[in-house]
Protein backbone atom coordinates (compact mmCIF):
# COMPACT_ATOMS: atom_id res chain seq x y z
CA UNK A 1 0.00 0.00 0.00
CA UNK A 2 1.32 3.41 -0.90
CA UNK A 3 1.97 6.09 1.68
CA UNK A 4 -1.11 8.12 2.63
CA UNK A 5 -0.83 11.52 0.97
CA UNK A 6 -2.93 14.64 0.63
CA UNK A 7 -5.46 16.61 2.63
CA UNK A 8 -9.00 15.71 1.61
CA UNK A 9 -11.81 18.16 2.36
CA UNK A 10 -15.34 16.80 2.48
CA UNK A 11 -17.43 19.47 0.81
CA UNK A 12 -21.00 20.34 1.63
CA UNK A 13 -23.28 22.19 -0.74
CA UNK A 14 -26.04 24.67 -0.15
CA UNK A 15 -28.17 25.29 -3.25
CA UNK A 16 -25.46 23.77 -5.47
CA UNK A 17 -22.80 26.14 -4.10
CA UNK A 18 -20.00 25.42 -1.65
CA UNK A 19 -21.14 26.02 1.90
CA UNK A 20 -19.19 28.59 3.88
CA UNK A 21 -17.86 25.84 6.14
CA UNK A 22 -16.41 24.06 3.12
CA UNK A 23 -14.60 27.21 2.14
CA UNK A 24 -13.22 27.49 5.68
CA UNK A 25 -12.04 23.88 5.51
CA UNK A 26 -10.28 24.60 2.21
CA UNK A 27 -8.43 27.42 3.93
CA UNK A 28 -7.52 25.30 6.97
CA UNK A 29 -6.59 22.37 4.73
CA UNK A 30 -4.55 24.64 2.49
CA UNK A 31 -2.42 25.73 5.44
CA UNK A 32 -1.84 22.11 6.45
CA UNK A 33 -1.05 21.19 2.86
CA UNK A 34 1.56 23.93 2.72
CA UNK A 35 3.30 22.90 5.92
CA UNK A 36 3.25 19.21 5.02
CA UNK A 37 4.14 19.70 1.37
CA UNK A 38 1.12 17.68 0.36
CA UNK A 39 -1.67 18.41 -2.11
CA UNK A 40 -5.11 19.75 -1.19
CA UNK A 41 -8.10 17.78 -2.46
CA UNK A 42 -11.84 18.11 -2.10
CA UNK A 43 -14.64 15.62 -2.54
CA UNK A 44 -18.18 16.64 -3.46
CA UNK A 45 -21.20 14.40 -3.21
CA UNK A 46 -24.55 14.62 -4.97
CA UNK A 47 -25.43 15.55 -8.54
CA UNK A 48 -24.77 18.68 -10.64
CA UNK A 49 -21.47 19.32 -8.96
CA UNK A 50 -19.65 21.16 -11.75
CA UNK A 51 -19.99 24.70 -10.49
CA UNK A 52 -19.16 23.81 -6.93
CA UNK A 53 -16.12 21.91 -8.19
CA UNK A 54 -14.88 25.06 -9.94
CA UNK A 55 -15.40 26.98 -6.72
CA UNK A 56 -13.41 24.39 -4.78
CA UNK A 57 -10.55 24.78 -7.23
CA UNK A 58 -10.54 28.55 -7.02
CA UNK A 59 -10.46 28.01 -3.24
CA UNK A 60 -7.26 26.04 -3.63
CA UNK A 61 -8.10 22.38 -4.30
CA UNK A 62 -5.78 20.88 -6.90
CA UNK A 63 -8.04 17.89 -7.47
CA UNK A 64 -11.75 17.59 -6.90
CA UNK A 65 -13.32 14.16 -6.62
CA UNK A 66 -16.93 13.91 -7.65
CA UNK A 67 -19.09 11.20 -6.15
CA UNK A 68 -22.27 11.45 -8.13
CA UNK A 69 -25.33 9.61 -6.97
CA UNK A 70 -28.95 10.73 -6.49
CA UNK A 71 -29.05 9.33 -2.96
CA UNK A 72 -26.34 11.81 -2.03
CA UNK A 73 -28.62 14.77 -2.65
CA UNK A 74 -30.44 13.99 0.55
CA UNK A 75 -29.08 14.23 4.02
CA UNK A 76 -28.87 10.46 4.12
CA UNK A 77 -26.02 9.73 6.48
CA UNK A 78 -25.45 6.06 5.62
CA UNK A 79 -25.33 6.80 1.90
CA UNK A 80 -22.75 9.54 2.50
CA UNK A 81 -20.66 7.30 4.73
CA UNK A 82 -20.69 4.52 2.15
CA UNK A 83 -19.63 6.89 -0.64
CA UNK A 84 -16.96 8.61 1.45
CA UNK A 85 -15.49 5.30 2.50
CA UNK A 86 -15.02 4.37 -1.17
CA UNK A 87 -13.52 7.75 -2.02
CA UNK A 88 -11.17 7.67 0.98
CA UNK A 89 -10.00 4.17 0.12
CA UNK A 90 -9.21 5.26 -3.40
CA UNK A 91 -7.57 8.59 -2.55
CA UNK A 92 -5.80 7.48 0.64
CA UNK A 93 -5.38 10.94 2.14
CA UNK A 94 -3.27 11.47 5.22
CA UNK A 95 -5.80 13.93 6.65
CA UNK A 96 -9.54 14.13 6.08
CA UNK A 97 -11.42 17.23 7.23
CA UNK A 98 -15.18 17.41 7.72
CA UNK A 99 -17.18 20.44 8.87
CA UNK A 100 -18.81 19.98 12.25
CA UNK A 101 -22.22 20.64 10.81
CA UNK A 102 -25.32 18.66 11.59
CA UNK A 103 -24.37 16.19 8.83
CA UNK A 104 -20.65 16.26 9.63
CA UNK A 105 -21.18 15.39 13.28
CA UNK A 106 -22.90 12.22 12.16
CA UNK A 107 -20.57 11.38 9.29
CA UNK A 108 -17.34 11.65 11.24
CA UNK A 109 -17.83 8.86 13.79
CA UNK A 110 -19.27 6.44 11.26
CA UNK A 111 -16.65 7.10 8.62
CA UNK A 112 -13.85 6.71 11.18
CA UNK A 113 -15.35 3.42 12.24
CA UNK A 114 -15.55 2.11 8.67
CA UNK A 115 -11.99 3.15 7.90
CA UNK A 116 -10.80 1.70 11.23
CA UNK A 117 -9.21 4.94 12.30
CA UNK A 118 -9.68 7.46 15.07
CA UNK A 119 -11.45 10.77 15.03
CA UNK A 120 -11.29 14.09 16.81
CA UNK A 121 -14.51 16.10 16.94
CA UNK A 122 -14.97 19.84 17.17
CA UNK A 123 -11.47 21.07 16.36
CA UNK A 124 -10.78 24.72 17.12
CA UNK A 125 -7.14 24.63 15.98
CA UNK A 126 -5.06 22.40 13.71
CA UNK A 127 -1.28 22.31 13.60
CA UNK A 128 1.42 20.03 12.28
CA UNK A 129 3.97 18.80 14.79
CA UNK A 130 7.44 19.56 13.50
CA UNK A 131 9.50 16.41 13.04
CA UNK A 132 6.80 13.77 13.38
CA UNK A 133 4.53 15.58 10.90
CA UNK A 134 1.60 14.42 12.99
CA UNK A 135 -1.57 16.45 13.00
CA UNK A 136 -2.24 18.06 16.39
CA UNK A 137 -5.89 18.80 17.03
CA UNK A 138 -7.05 21.22 19.71
CA UNK A 139 -10.56 20.57 20.95
CA UNK A 140 -12.68 21.76 23.86
CA UNK A 141 -13.36 19.14 26.54
CA UNK A 142 -15.01 19.03 29.95
CA UNK A 143 -17.77 21.32 28.85
CA UNK A 144 -15.35 23.86 27.46
CA UNK A 145 -13.50 24.13 30.77
CA UNK A 146 -10.37 22.84 29.13
CA UNK A 147 -8.72 22.51 25.76
CA UNK A 148 -7.09 19.19 24.89
CA UNK A 149 -4.53 18.57 22.18
CA UNK A 150 -5.00 15.12 20.69
CA UNK A 151 -3.29 13.08 17.99
CA UNK A 152 -4.47 10.11 16.03
CA UNK A 153 -2.35 7.05 15.44
CA UNK A 154 -3.70 5.95 12.08
CA UNK A 155 -4.30 7.51 8.70
CA UNK A 156 -6.36 9.18 7.51
CA UNK A 157 -6.45 11.39 10.56
CA UNK A 158 -10.10 12.42 10.57
CA UNK A 159 -11.21 15.66 12.15
CA UNK A 160 -14.51 17.48 12.30
CA UNK A 161 -13.79 21.20 12.40
CA UNK A 162 -15.90 23.78 14.20
CA UNK A 163 -17.48 26.24 11.79
CA UNK A 164 -16.30 29.86 11.83
CA UNK A 165 -13.01 29.13 13.52
CA UNK A 166 -11.09 29.49 10.27
CA UNK A 167 -11.57 32.27 7.77
CA UNK A 168 -13.00 31.27 4.42
CA UNK A 169 -10.45 30.55 1.69
CA UNK A 170 -10.01 33.32 -0.83
CA UNK A 171 -11.28 32.36 -4.26
CA UNK A 172 -8.34 33.69 -6.20
CA UNK A 173 -6.50 30.47 -7.00
CA UNK A 174 -6.23 28.91 -10.41
CA UNK A 175 -9.21 26.91 -11.59
CA UNK A 176 -7.05 24.56 -13.55
CA UNK A 177 -7.40 21.71 -11.13
CA UNK A 178 -8.26 18.19 -12.12
CA UNK A 179 -11.76 16.73 -11.92
CA UNK A 180 -11.91 13.06 -11.00
CA UNK A 181 -15.17 11.14 -11.12
CA UNK A 182 -15.37 8.33 -8.62
CA UNK A 183 -17.95 5.67 -9.39
CA UNK A 184 -19.50 5.07 -6.00
CA UNK A 185 -21.73 2.14 -5.33
CA UNK A 186 -24.47 2.61 -2.79
CA UNK A 187 -26.55 -0.53 -2.38
CA UNK A 188 -30.12 0.19 -1.31
CA UNK A 189 -29.57 -1.98 1.73
CA UNK A 190 -27.30 0.63 3.37
CA UNK A 191 -30.18 3.05 3.61
CA UNK A 192 -31.80 1.84 6.75
CA UNK A 193 -33.28 5.02 8.06
CA UNK A 194 -35.35 7.35 5.96
CA UNK A 195 -35.96 11.07 6.09
CA UNK A 196 -39.72 11.17 5.59
CA UNK A 197 -40.18 14.89 5.95
CA UNK A 198 -38.02 18.01 6.11
CA UNK A 199 -39.45 20.85 8.11
CA UNK A 200 -37.71 24.16 7.50
CA UNK A 201 -38.60 26.85 9.95
CA UNK A 202 -37.86 29.98 7.97
CA UNK A 203 -36.65 32.98 9.86
CA UNK A 204 -37.59 36.40 8.70
CA UNK A 205 -34.65 38.78 8.41
CA UNK A 206 -30.96 38.01 8.78
CA UNK A 207 -29.70 34.58 9.76
CA UNK A 208 -28.21 34.51 13.22
CA UNK A 209 -24.98 32.89 12.01
CA UNK A 210 -24.45 35.65 9.48
CA UNK A 211 -25.75 38.63 11.43
CA UNK A 212 -23.49 41.60 12.18
CA UNK A 213 -25.27 42.09 15.49
CA UNK A 214 -26.75 39.36 17.66
CA UNK A 215 -28.89 39.89 20.74
CA UNK A 216 -28.70 36.80 22.94
CA UNK A 217 -31.27 36.04 25.62
CA UNK A 218 -30.79 33.74 28.59
CA UNK A 219 -32.68 32.01 31.35
CA UNK A 220 -33.07 35.34 33.14
CA UNK A 221 -35.56 36.46 30.48
CA UNK A 222 -38.02 34.14 32.16
CA UNK A 223 -40.20 33.21 29.19
CA UNK A 224 -40.79 33.42 25.45
CA UNK A 225 -42.38 36.90 25.35
CA UNK A 226 -39.21 38.88 26.20
CA UNK A 227 -37.54 37.48 23.09
CA UNK A 228 -39.87 39.72 21.09
CA UNK A 229 -38.44 42.65 23.03
CA UNK A 230 -34.93 41.54 22.22
CA UNK A 231 -35.89 41.08 18.60
CA UNK A 232 -37.01 44.71 18.37
CA UNK A 233 -33.59 45.79 19.53
CA UNK A 234 -31.77 43.39 17.23
CA UNK A 235 -33.85 44.46 14.21
CA UNK A 236 -33.04 48.12 14.77
CA UNK A 237 -29.39 47.19 14.49
CA UNK A 238 -29.98 44.98 11.47
CA UNK A 239 -29.28 41.94 13.58
CA UNK A 240 -30.81 38.71 14.77
CA UNK A 241 -31.66 37.05 18.08
CA UNK A 242 -29.95 34.07 19.67
CA UNK A 243 -30.20 32.31 23.01
CA UNK A 244 -28.51 30.27 25.70
CA UNK A 245 -29.24 26.58 26.02
CA UNK A 246 -31.64 26.79 28.98
CA UNK A 247 -33.80 29.26 27.04
CA UNK A 248 -33.93 26.80 24.14
CA UNK A 249 -34.44 23.78 26.37
CA UNK A 250 -37.36 25.54 28.05
CA UNK A 251 -38.95 25.97 24.62
CA UNK A 252 -38.92 29.77 24.72
CA UNK A 253 -37.11 29.87 21.40
CA UNK A 254 -36.25 27.23 18.80
CA UNK A 255 -33.07 25.21 19.42
CA UNK A 256 -31.60 26.36 16.13
CA UNK A 257 -30.92 29.69 17.81
CA UNK A 258 -28.79 28.12 20.53
CA UNK A 259 -25.37 29.69 20.81
CA UNK A 260 -22.53 27.72 22.38
CA UNK A 261 -20.55 24.56 22.54
CA UNK A 262 -23.49 22.37 21.61
CA UNK A 263 -25.19 25.05 19.57
CA UNK A 264 -24.00 27.43 16.90
CA UNK A 265 -20.88 29.54 16.73
CA UNK A 266 -21.36 33.19 15.93
CA UNK A 267 -18.78 35.82 15.07
CA UNK A 268 -20.70 39.08 14.90
CA UNK A 269 -19.30 42.58 15.27
CA UNK A 270 -21.47 42.96 18.34
CA UNK A 271 -22.99 40.46 20.73
CA UNK A 272 -25.49 41.75 23.28
CA UNK A 273 -25.86 39.18 26.08
CA UNK A 274 -29.01 39.76 28.08
CA UNK A 275 -29.73 37.83 31.29
CA UNK A 276 -27.05 35.31 30.40
CA UNK A 277 -24.58 34.30 33.11
CA UNK A 278 -21.63 33.67 30.79
CA UNK A 279 -20.99 29.95 31.35
CA UNK A 280 -17.96 28.74 29.40
CA UNK A 281 -20.18 26.48 27.27
CA UNK A 282 -22.11 29.51 26.13
CA UNK A 283 -19.01 31.63 25.62
CA UNK A 284 -17.53 28.91 23.40
CA UNK A 285 -20.10 29.93 20.82
CA UNK A 286 -19.74 33.69 21.00
CA UNK A 287 -16.17 34.42 22.01
CA UNK A 288 -15.40 35.19 18.38
CA UNK A 289 -17.59 38.29 18.63
CA UNK A 290 -15.59 41.52 18.21
CA UNK A 291 -17.43 43.31 20.98
CA UNK A 292 -19.56 41.81 23.75
CA UNK A 293 -21.84 43.94 25.90
CA UNK A 294 -23.82 42.46 28.77
CA UNK A 295 -26.89 43.19 30.83
CA UNK A 296 -27.28 41.22 34.05
CA UNK A 297 -28.58 42.05 37.51
CA UNK A 298 -25.88 40.04 39.25
CA UNK A 299 -22.66 42.03 39.80
CA UNK A 300 -20.76 38.76 40.13
CA UNK A 301 -21.95 37.28 36.83
CA UNK A 302 -19.10 35.72 34.84
CA UNK A 303 -20.26 37.50 31.71
CA UNK A 304 -18.96 40.81 33.10
CA UNK A 305 -15.44 39.36 33.12
CA UNK A 306 -15.69 38.80 29.39
CA UNK A 307 -17.67 41.79 28.16
CA UNK A 308 -16.23 45.08 26.86
CA UNK A 309 -19.09 46.90 28.51
CA UNK A 310 -21.54 45.72 31.13
CA UNK A 311 -24.54 47.17 32.86
CA UNK A 312 -25.67 45.78 36.19
CA UNK A 313 -29.43 45.93 36.52
CA UNK A 314 -32.77 44.56 35.47
CA UNK A 315 -33.08 43.88 31.75
CA UNK A 316 -36.75 44.87 31.93
CA UNK A 317 -35.63 48.45 32.44
CA UNK A 318 -32.37 48.48 30.54
CA UNK A 319 -33.38 46.78 27.30
CA UNK A 320 -36.29 49.14 26.51
CA UNK A 321 -34.13 52.17 27.34
CA UNK A 322 -31.30 50.76 25.22
CA UNK A 323 -33.72 50.18 22.33
CA UNK A 324 -35.01 53.72 22.65
CA UNK A 325 -31.51 55.18 22.69
CA UNK A 326 -30.59 53.18 19.59
CA UNK A 327 -33.75 54.33 17.84
CA UNK A 328 -32.69 57.91 18.45
CA UNK A 329 -29.15 57.28 17.31
CA UNK A 330 -30.14 55.65 14.04
CA UNK A 331 -32.83 58.15 13.15
Amino acid sequence: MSEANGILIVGELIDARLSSVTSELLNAGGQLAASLGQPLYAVLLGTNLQNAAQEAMSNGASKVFLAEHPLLNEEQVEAHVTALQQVAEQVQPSILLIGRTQLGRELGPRLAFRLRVGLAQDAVALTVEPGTQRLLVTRPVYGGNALAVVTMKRKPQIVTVRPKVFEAATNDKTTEGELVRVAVEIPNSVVRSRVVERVAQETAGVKMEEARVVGGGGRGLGGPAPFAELEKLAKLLGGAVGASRPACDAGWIDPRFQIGLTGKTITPELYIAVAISGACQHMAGCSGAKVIVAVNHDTEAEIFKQARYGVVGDWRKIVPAFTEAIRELVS
Partner: protein
Amino acid sequence: MNIVVCGKIIPASTVTIELDPNTKRMVRKGVTHELDPAAASAVEEGLRLSEKHGGAVTLVTMGISEVTIGIRNALAMGVASAVHILDDAVAGSDTLGTAKLLAAAIKKQPFDLVLCATESSDSYSGIVHGQLAQLLGIPALTFAKEVTADGGRISIHRQSENGYDVVESTLPALVAVSSGINEPRYPQLKGIMAAKKKEIKVYTAADLGLAADQVGEKGAREKVLTIGRPPKREAGKVVTDEGEGGKQIADFLAEIKVI
Protein backbone atom coordinates in the same frame (compact mmCIF):
# COMPACT_ATOMS: atom_id res chain seq x y z
CA MET B 1 -40.08 -2.98 23.83
CA ASN B 2 -36.80 -3.69 25.60
CA ILE B 3 -34.68 -0.60 25.95
CA VAL B 4 -31.01 -0.25 26.83
CA VAL B 5 -29.85 3.20 27.86
CA CYS B 6 -26.13 3.91 27.64
CA GLY B 7 -25.46 6.60 30.17
CA LYS B 8 -22.26 8.01 31.52
CA ILE B 9 -21.79 8.92 35.16
CA ILE B 10 -19.45 11.85 35.57
CA PRO B 11 -17.95 14.13 38.22
CA ALA B 12 -20.78 16.23 39.65
CA SER B 13 -21.28 19.70 38.22
CA THR B 14 -20.59 21.12 41.67
CA VAL B 15 -17.06 19.70 41.61
CA THR B 16 -14.31 22.04 40.45
CA ILE B 17 -12.56 20.16 37.71
CA GLU B 18 -8.97 19.28 38.37
CA LEU B 19 -6.73 18.24 35.55
CA ASP B 20 -4.08 15.59 36.13
CA PRO B 21 -0.98 16.71 34.21
CA ASN B 22 0.31 13.12 34.00
CA THR B 23 -2.70 11.30 32.66
CA LYS B 24 -3.99 14.45 30.86
CA ARG B 25 -7.37 13.56 32.25
CA MET B 26 -9.79 15.03 34.71
CA VAL B 27 -9.28 13.70 38.23
CA ARG B 28 -12.16 11.26 38.77
CA LYS B 29 -11.01 9.09 41.66
CA GLY B 30 -12.40 10.14 45.02
CA VAL B 31 -14.62 12.79 43.40
CA THR B 32 -18.41 12.92 43.87
CA HIS B 33 -20.16 11.65 40.76
CA GLU B 34 -23.62 12.10 39.29
CA LEU B 35 -25.64 10.78 36.38
CA ASP B 36 -24.66 12.95 33.41
CA PRO B 37 -27.62 15.33 32.83
CA ALA B 38 -27.45 14.33 29.16
CA ALA B 39 -27.73 10.66 30.18
CA ALA B 40 -30.60 11.49 32.54
CA SER B 41 -32.54 12.74 29.52
CA ALA B 42 -31.87 9.45 27.72
CA VAL B 43 -33.06 7.54 30.83
CA GLU B 44 -36.18 9.68 31.01
CA GLU B 45 -36.97 9.08 27.33
CA GLY B 46 -36.47 5.32 27.85
CA LEU B 47 -38.80 5.30 30.83
CA ARG B 48 -41.50 7.22 28.94
CA LEU B 49 -41.31 4.84 25.99
CA SER B 50 -41.47 1.76 28.24
CA GLU B 51 -44.41 3.21 30.18
CA LYS B 52 -46.24 3.58 26.90
CA HIS B 53 -45.18 0.42 25.11
CA GLY B 54 -44.21 -1.97 27.91
CA GLY B 55 -40.84 -3.66 28.37
CA ALA B 56 -37.96 -2.96 30.71
CA VAL B 57 -35.25 -0.32 30.68
CA THR B 58 -31.67 -1.36 31.44
CA LEU B 59 -28.85 1.08 32.10
CA VAL B 60 -25.40 0.21 30.77
CA THR B 61 -22.50 2.27 32.02
CA MET B 62 -18.74 2.08 32.05
CA GLY B 63 -16.84 3.79 34.80
CA ILE B 64 -14.89 3.58 38.03
CA SER B 65 -16.40 2.48 41.36
CA GLU B 66 -17.32 6.10 42.16
CA VAL B 67 -20.11 5.91 39.57
CA THR B 68 -22.33 3.61 41.66
CA ILE B 69 -24.19 6.62 43.09
CA GLY B 70 -25.31 7.58 39.59
CA ILE B 71 -26.39 4.03 38.78
CA ARG B 72 -28.55 4.07 41.91
CA ASN B 73 -30.03 7.35 40.80
CA ALA B 74 -31.07 5.88 37.43
CA LEU B 75 -32.50 2.84 39.19
CA ALA B 76 -34.43 5.15 41.51
CA MET B 77 -35.83 6.99 38.49
CA GLY B 78 -37.33 3.68 37.40
CA VAL B 79 -34.72 1.79 35.41
CA ALA B 80 -35.22 -1.97 36.05
CA SER B 81 -31.60 -3.10 36.27
CA ALA B 82 -28.10 -1.95 35.48
CA VAL B 83 -24.90 -3.23 33.94
CA HIS B 84 -21.65 -1.73 35.19
CA ILE B 85 -18.43 -2.26 33.22
CA LEU B 86 -15.83 -1.91 35.93
CA ASP B 87 -12.21 -2.76 35.23
CA ASP B 88 -8.91 -0.90 35.73
CA ALA B 89 -7.86 -2.24 32.34
CA VAL B 90 -10.43 -0.07 30.53
CA ALA B 91 -9.05 3.23 31.84
CA GLY B 92 -7.91 5.49 29.01
CA SER B 93 -10.11 3.80 26.42
CA ASP B 94 -10.77 5.90 23.35
CA THR B 95 -14.26 6.14 21.94
CA LEU B 96 -13.91 2.95 19.89
CA GLY B 97 -12.71 0.97 22.90
CA THR B 98 -15.64 2.36 24.87
CA ALA B 99 -18.09 1.49 22.10
CA LYS B 100 -16.73 -2.08 21.87
CA LEU B 101 -17.22 -2.60 25.58
CA LEU B 102 -20.71 -1.11 25.58
CA ALA B 103 -21.71 -3.15 22.51
CA ALA B 104 -20.54 -6.39 24.11
CA ALA B 105 -22.47 -5.59 27.30
CA ILE B 106 -25.62 -4.63 25.35
CA LYS B 107 -25.54 -7.89 23.38
CA LYS B 108 -25.89 -9.84 26.61
CA GLN B 109 -29.60 -9.07 26.76
CA PRO B 110 -32.41 -8.84 24.23
CA PHE B 111 -33.01 -5.26 23.07
CA ASP B 112 -35.17 -3.38 20.60
CA LEU B 113 -33.88 0.11 21.20
CA VAL B 114 -30.58 1.55 22.41
CA LEU B 115 -30.73 5.11 23.72
CA CYS B 116 -27.68 7.36 24.08
CA ALA B 117 -27.12 11.07 24.59
CA THR B 118 -25.71 12.99 21.62
CA GLU B 119 -22.57 13.74 23.57
CA SER B 120 -21.48 13.33 27.15
CA SER B 121 -21.18 16.45 29.30
CA ASP B 122 -17.55 15.74 30.21
CA SER B 123 -15.28 14.37 27.47
CA TYR B 124 -17.90 15.44 24.97
CA SER B 125 -16.73 13.53 21.91
CA GLY B 126 -20.13 12.83 20.40
CA ILE B 127 -18.66 9.76 18.77
CA VAL B 128 -19.57 6.70 20.82
CA HIS B 129 -23.15 6.27 19.58
CA GLY B 130 -22.12 6.28 15.94
CA GLN B 131 -19.56 3.54 16.53
CA LEU B 132 -21.91 1.62 18.79
CA ALA B 133 -24.61 1.41 16.12
CA GLN B 134 -22.06 0.13 13.61
CA LEU B 135 -20.82 -2.50 16.05
CA LEU B 136 -24.37 -3.61 16.81
CA GLY B 137 -25.27 -3.54 13.12
CA ILE B 138 -28.31 -1.34 13.66
CA PRO B 139 -29.36 2.03 12.21
CA ALA B 140 -28.51 5.14 14.21
CA LEU B 141 -30.91 8.06 14.48
CA THR B 142 -29.23 11.04 16.08
CA PHE B 143 -29.93 14.55 17.39
CA ALA B 144 -33.42 13.51 18.38
CA LYS B 145 -35.53 16.22 19.96
CA GLU B 146 -38.62 14.03 19.86
CA VAL B 147 -38.98 10.24 19.77
CA THR B 148 -42.07 8.16 19.00
CA ALA B 149 -42.36 4.41 18.62
CA ASP B 150 -45.08 2.55 16.79
CA GLY B 151 -45.06 -1.22 16.47
CA GLY B 152 -41.73 -2.21 15.03
CA ARG B 153 -40.80 1.33 13.96
CA ILE B 154 -39.19 4.32 15.54
CA SER B 155 -39.52 7.91 14.38
CA ILE B 156 -37.62 10.96 15.54
CA HIS B 157 -37.44 14.69 14.94
CA ARG B 158 -33.81 15.35 14.12
CA GLN B 159 -32.54 18.86 14.64
CA SER B 160 -31.40 20.32 11.30
CA GLU B 161 -29.63 23.56 10.44
CA ASN B 162 -32.88 25.41 9.94
CA GLY B 163 -35.63 23.25 11.39
CA TYR B 164 -36.00 19.53 11.78
CA ASP B 165 -36.21 16.33 9.78
CA VAL B 166 -38.58 13.50 10.53
CA VAL B 167 -36.43 10.36 10.36
CA GLU B 168 -37.74 6.81 10.60
CA SER B 169 -36.36 3.31 10.78
CA THR B 170 -37.35 -0.15 11.85
CA LEU B 171 -36.32 -1.57 15.20
CA PRO B 172 -33.86 -2.57 16.50
CA ALA B 173 -32.23 0.83 16.27
CA LEU B 174 -30.11 3.28 18.20
CA VAL B 175 -31.36 6.76 19.02
CA ALA B 176 -29.18 9.55 20.41
CA VAL B 177 -31.19 12.26 22.14
CA SER B 178 -30.41 15.99 22.35
CA SER B 179 -30.39 17.99 25.52
CA GLY B 180 -33.75 19.56 26.20
CA ILE B 181 -35.71 16.63 24.77
CA ASN B 182 -37.42 16.29 28.14
CA GLU B 183 -37.25 17.26 31.79
CA PRO B 184 -35.83 14.22 33.64
CA ARG B 185 -37.90 13.18 36.65
CA TYR B 186 -36.59 13.37 40.18
CA PRO B 187 -36.49 10.03 41.98
CA GLN B 188 -39.26 9.64 44.58
CA LEU B 189 -38.76 8.00 47.96
CA LYS B 190 -40.49 4.84 46.76
CA GLY B 191 -38.17 4.64 43.81
CA ILE B 192 -35.14 5.24 45.98
CA MET B 193 -36.15 2.39 48.30
CA ALA B 194 -36.88 0.07 45.37
CA ALA B 195 -33.52 0.91 43.79
CA LYS B 196 -31.68 -0.66 46.71
CA LYS B 197 -33.03 -4.06 45.75
CA LYS B 198 -32.38 -3.79 42.04
CA GLU B 199 -29.59 -5.73 40.41
CA ILE B 200 -26.34 -4.20 39.20
CA LYS B 201 -24.38 -6.70 37.08
CA VAL B 202 -20.67 -6.03 37.04
CA TYR B 203 -18.51 -7.07 34.08
CA THR B 204 -14.80 -6.80 33.33
CA ALA B 205 -13.41 -6.50 29.79
CA ALA B 206 -12.53 -10.21 29.93
CA ASP B 207 -16.13 -11.08 30.90
CA LEU B 208 -17.17 -9.30 27.74
CA GLY B 209 -14.69 -11.24 25.63
CA LEU B 210 -12.44 -8.27 24.92
CA ALA B 211 -8.67 -8.67 25.09
CA ALA B 212 -6.61 -6.15 27.03
CA ASP B 213 -5.00 -4.73 23.89
CA GLN B 214 -8.37 -3.83 22.36
CA VAL B 215 -9.44 -1.51 25.15
CA GLY B 216 -7.95 0.97 27.58
CA GLU B 217 -4.90 3.12 26.85
CA LYS B 218 -3.25 0.33 24.83
CA GLY B 219 -6.10 -0.09 22.38
CA ALA B 220 -6.59 3.62 21.89
CA ARG B 221 -6.15 5.18 18.45
CA GLU B 222 -6.16 8.67 19.91
CA LYS B 223 -3.79 10.09 22.40
CA VAL B 224 -4.27 13.18 24.51
CA LEU B 225 -0.98 15.12 24.44
CA THR B 226 -1.68 18.16 26.54
CA ILE B 227 -4.57 19.73 28.28
CA GLY B 228 -4.99 23.29 29.44
CA ARG B 229 -7.41 26.08 30.16
CA PRO B 230 -8.99 28.07 27.37
CA PRO B 231 -7.98 31.73 27.00
CA LYS B 232 -10.33 34.27 28.54
CA ARG B 233 -11.41 37.58 27.12
CA GLU B 234 -10.40 40.66 29.00
CA ALA B 235 -13.00 42.27 31.21
CA GLY B 236 -14.05 45.76 30.24
CA LYS B 237 -16.04 48.39 32.01
CA VAL B 238 -19.01 47.61 34.24
CA VAL B 239 -21.53 50.26 35.35
CA THR B 240 -24.62 49.96 37.52
CA ASP B 241 -27.93 50.99 36.04
CA GLU B 242 -29.43 54.02 37.69
CA GLY B 243 -31.92 54.71 34.98
CA GLU B 244 -29.27 55.59 32.40
CA GLY B 245 -27.90 52.07 31.76
CA GLY B 246 -29.62 51.53 28.43
CA LYS B 247 -28.44 54.86 27.09
CA GLN B 248 -24.94 54.30 28.41
CA ILE B 249 -24.53 51.10 26.38
CA ALA B 250 -25.80 52.86 23.28
CA ASP B 251 -23.38 55.74 23.85
CA PHE B 252 -20.50 53.35 24.40
CA LEU B 253 -21.28 51.54 21.17
CA ALA B 254 -21.50 54.82 19.30
CA GLU B 255 -18.19 55.90 20.83
CA ILE B 256 -16.33 52.78 19.67
CA LYS B 257 -18.17 53.11 16.34
CA VAL B 258 -19.87 49.73 16.41
CA ILE B 259 -23.10 51.51 15.62
